[in-house]
């Protein structure tokens, strides 16, 4: 029983880690420009397709070079999104930019089918179908790769945000873009960098989860929905909240499916989300906004 429990929790944490990476993207963009990027899940898909459909299958690029190249390509694509979608609409009603991201989402899914075809692509990942034995239970090694990747990314992000001028400029822009601009920070460029970084996080999530299932045009849809729920659970706008919310949501799904019912897993997972929000509307790490009467 303990072995099964370990398996369930580890799988939940790994799946939750993927949610967390996407949720971080939502949070960073929201903090910087008050925009919910509904195409975030499709950037998961795009990262996986670029890596598997182009760099691996067509160019035969070695795995780690493939990963780095894909992240660079997607980072540039993210920056292009900031210039191509956010900037032209930054003074328009907020709804316009949100609708633009929804349109982008649909466009990316259909472009993926046109470019890479409708058949799902297989991706073995760094360790293929290797399983490891841990505490007497069998774990698919890719789950551990995902957890390790999240830990590494968080360490890199901490270093970037706390110890570099670029990171400080990103934090300043996220806290108050207007004040940051008045302090001489080139906010337009920093916003483009935030979009690029958020896109790279989503693309990394796609690269990490692809070996668990497959690469397809709709692979980001479910992931982004859950990542969005995780963002709310953790506290909208909170970076630790996105991380913890993702992990908790993953474990709830995994444990709920095993111990309660797979038939009602969405009811269970989203029921917990509703329950948390009833008692703590700002989410786990969110701050309650008080308005003066």
């Amino acid at each position: 029983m303990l072995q099964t429990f370990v398996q369930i929790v580890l799988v939940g944490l790994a799946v939750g880690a993927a949610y967390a990476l996407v949720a971080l993207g939502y949070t960073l963009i929201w903090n910087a420009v008050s925009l919910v990027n509904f195409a975030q899940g499709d950037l998961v898909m795009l990262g996986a397709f670029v890596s598997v459909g182009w760099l691996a299958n067509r160019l035969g690029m070695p795995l780690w070079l493939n990963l780095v190249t894909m992240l660079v390509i997607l980072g540039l694509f993210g920056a292009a999104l900031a210039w191509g979608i956010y900037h032209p609409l930054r003074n328009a009603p907020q709804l316009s930019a949100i609708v633009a991201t929804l349109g982008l989402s649909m466009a990316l899914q259909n472009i993926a089918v046109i470019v890479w075809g409708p058949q799902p692509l297989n991706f073995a990942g760094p360790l293929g179908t290797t399983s490891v034995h841990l505490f007497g239970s069998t774990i698919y090694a890719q789950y551990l790769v995902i957890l390790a990747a999240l830990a590494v990314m968080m360490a890199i992000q901490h270093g970037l945000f706390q110890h570099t001028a670029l990171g400080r400029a990103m934090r300043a822009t996220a806290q108050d873009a207007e004040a940051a601009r008045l302090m001489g920070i080139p906010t337009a460029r920093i916003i483009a960098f935030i979009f690029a970084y958020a896109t790279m996080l989503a693309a990394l999530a796609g690269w990490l989860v692809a070996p668990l299932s497959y690469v397809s045009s709709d692979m980001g849809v479910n992931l982004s929905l859950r990542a969005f729920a995780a963002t709310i659970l953790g506290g909208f706008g909170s970076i630790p909240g996105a991380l913890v919310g993702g992990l908790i949501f993953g474990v709830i799904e995994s444990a709920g499916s095993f111990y309660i019912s797979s038939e009602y897993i969405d009811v269970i997972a989203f029921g917990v989300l509703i329950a948390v929000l009833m008692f703590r509307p700002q989410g786990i790490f969110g701050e309650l906004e008080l308005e003066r009467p």
Partner: protein
Amino acid sequence: MVSALRFSRRSLVKGLAVAPLAMPAIVGRARAADPIRIGISGPMTGQFAQNGQWMKNGVAIAVKQANDKGGIKGRLIEVRIADDLGPNPTAAGNAVTKLATQDEVVALVGPHYTPGILPNVPLLAKYKVPCLTGATGPVVTQQGSAWVFRVRLNDAIGADLLVKYVVEDLQWKKIGLGYVNTAFGQSGIAVVKASLSKRSIEPVLVQAHTDATKDYTSQILAFQQAGVDGIIVWTDDQPAGLIAKQSKTLGAKFGIAGNTAFSQPIFLGLAGEGADGCMAIGEFVNDNPDERVQSWKKLYAAAYPGDEPELYATVYHDAAKLIIAAMERAETISGEGIQQALTAIRDFPGIVTRYGWTGNGDMTHSGIITRVAAGKPEIVKVISS
């Protein structure tokens, strides 16, 4: 001038009055050369788009063959396509409505998926358009529509035969069930449960998933913990592939059997080594040495180099052939004429099987049980209802 004008007006009025009498002849001649439109409602985008592509390929070959011979009664056949997104009731309803009302097709191939065909059953009667579908959910023909013709084995028969095989031939005693939570999965697994119950077996565990489910670890572990001999799963191609792949990764020891999905190329591609040993009830494998299957393989490979015919292309090729045969036999090339002619078909030689209409709309009455070995499904049993 006035007089001339009056004369002209009178002539015009006379001409207009006489025109309707002449119209049928003119329209009749025009219609004789007009193409006959048949429609495909299939998934052309999204997760199931590959299956839609195969549907299109199979129909295209049949239509080309007919057109190369001069068409039907001097009229060529034209194919109109609408994207129904697969098991999506809303999109499928829109696709069929568009094909019937805007494109004015006289017969339909698809929708393929049970959730896609169900909302269309009343629409097909309303538009008087016969539909040949591969949807296997028993619920599809339970409504007794005269406009739905099923060209694959009804799950009500197939699921029962599969249960008989695993219980009697493989001696499974403790059985777990899995299904995709759609009308297709629900109706298929209901037949499996009824069939098990008939043999005094209660499933030890029942698990549901959706087409969007990507991680089956907890479900596989639950089956393992329940100590099942095997699981019977009624689902779509992608979930089937993931269940087999992840069961292999987790070192699961139980057997896996299911609907046709567990023998199809998408399943084989996704499951990898996990596909080996999986069993399926189905109708078609392209390794069948039967002469018709082998010549179909050559014909398909010539039309689509690099691709191989699988169930979707083959069964919808047969469906298009059935429509063409019905059009040739029909008194009038209309929805009603084709519907009447289809009900008269009894022993039509297709590639998948010999088709024959029975009162409930079923046209397929035999199937095969396959087992995957070294990545290829092999026929282990041929069965007939």
